[in-house]
């Protein structure tokens, strides 16, 4: 615990070297860092090289249609300092392109492939953006907020009509399944 207490100040020193980076310590060994798209690779590089944040736990992508942005969150963990930095970066939805961090963190290869598949974001320099999960899929990237699952399901699949006796009785009395 003591290490994570002293962490924000030492992290501050490093973050000063990178323009456009803001840090917010949070509870429980978590630190949120907001970065600009340009400085993110440098941030990860510095975190890995100087602070030992060498385990890329995950890359999460969030779709924000209101602001027309994708938010990418890089969760990096330090085995030495026992704390987790979540680096947030927002990129424009329209080209949907970002630089790959595969050369810094090898695990990024899978996460970038996954985000490319689910959100359509292109990572320049990622080693393998071939389809992995959705090889039989030719619709839009399914995780986009604009993709309506229920609509797609109703168009594509058929249902068994489930109207058992007991339900019809209840419905006859004015009840039924509340939706």
């Amino acid at each position, binding site marked *: 615990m003591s290490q994570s207490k002293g962490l924000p100040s030492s992290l501050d020193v490093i973050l000063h070297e990178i323009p456009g980076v803001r840090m917010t310590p949070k509870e*429980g060994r*978590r630190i949120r860092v907001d970065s600009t798209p340009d400085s993110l690779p440098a941030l990860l590089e510095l975190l890995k090289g100087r602070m030992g944040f060498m*385990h890329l736990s995950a890359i999460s992508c969030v779709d924000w249609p209101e602001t027309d942005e994708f938010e990418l969150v890089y*969760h990096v963990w330090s085995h030495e300092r026992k704390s*987790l930095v979540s680096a947030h970066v927002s990129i424009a939805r329209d080209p949907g392109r970002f630089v790959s961090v595969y050369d810094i963190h090898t695990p990024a290869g*899978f*996460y970038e492939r996954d985000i490319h598949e689910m959100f359509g974001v292109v990572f320049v320099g990622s080693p393998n953006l071939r389809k*992995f999960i959705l090889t*039989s899929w030719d619709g839009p990237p399914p995780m986009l907020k604009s993709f309506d*699952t229920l609509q797609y399901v109703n168009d594509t699949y058929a249902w068994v009509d489930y109207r058992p006796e007991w339900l019809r009785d209840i419905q006859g009395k004015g009840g039924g399944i509340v939706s």
Partner: protein
Amino acid sequence: MRPENYNPVQHPPSHEYELYFGPNHPGIEGNYAIRVRLNGDLIQEAITDGGYLHRGFEKLMEQRLWIQNIALVPRICVPDPVPMEEAYARAVEALGGLEVPERAQWIRAMMLEMSRICAHLFTFGGNAATIGLYTNMFWGITMRDLFLDIFEEITGARIYHMYITPGGVRRDLPAGALDRLETVIEELERRTPEFEDLFFDSAVVIKRARGVGVISLENALAWGVTGPNLRASGMPSDVRRDDPYLVYPDIEFDVPTEIEGDALARLRVRQAEVTQSVRILRQVIERLRMIEGPVRCPLPNPLAWNIPAGEAYTRVESSKGEVGFFAVSDGGPKPYRVHVRGPSQMHAVQVLERVLKGSRLEDIAQIMFSLDACPPEVDR
């Protein structure tokens, strides 16, 4: 019909051939496929092919209430569902600012360790079956069934418990459950020498596992290997200890490590982990006998439960490695986004491809089972 990802343009040299390993193959854990290019017995290249178990969990969770997702979450990882529930519940607690009562925390730790033992017994069985030692599979899975009985008694379900809810657990332990758990633990300890004779100390098993699928510590760290697989390479890293949650700081346990990083080391680490889990369970049982109190903090109306906007990333140590849940709320009744990071997303894809390269055809199944790759959490 060819599989979609078949690329007919490449013509490999005549001495090489391609083999489809899975999805319908007993050497594959779950529903997964590996396309291997072989030169004789040696694997030149392995390309994994997932998505057979894809259900679109992350999309589904965006369309259900926070409370409804409790039912969805354990289904992400079939053999080891409890860590998923725990990670999701903690993410919701962090977002909603809920405080878990002490008794509930101990009960959760108990569920997690029982699930770990079950998953390891399952893996031992699968690992033994890949080398034809079915007896161990039969014994191990029967042993696991005794734990499933305890699960059923406590939660009402054998596999998908849906027991850990945000703010605690669903209901208190039934009377006598702890005693019965103790009997099962004793039974496990009584049977342990048999398993050692049959499986862990068997010359054939050691011969098959030693030096197979070696991951050096450097590679393990660089490739994002976590959990028992990382510990088998010599790194004493455990989320329970490094990023503690629940009551784990109050529990005494060791983090077993090995240095070889091969399939045998991974087996041995898991074997030692079962012992440690038993040790944890005994402490938990002792504490649970003393602690009384509520098992869930009061929740608002779950059908109209708006969680404050924000985001949380929680990590849990599962039997396969590090589970991460990233939950984003926009203040509504449903999650805005939930990202699941299963440990096998690394182990079953990139790590497996790299480890397989240069290995032999005989060892594919052995490597996959020793990495304990779990396809459902890759595909989600």
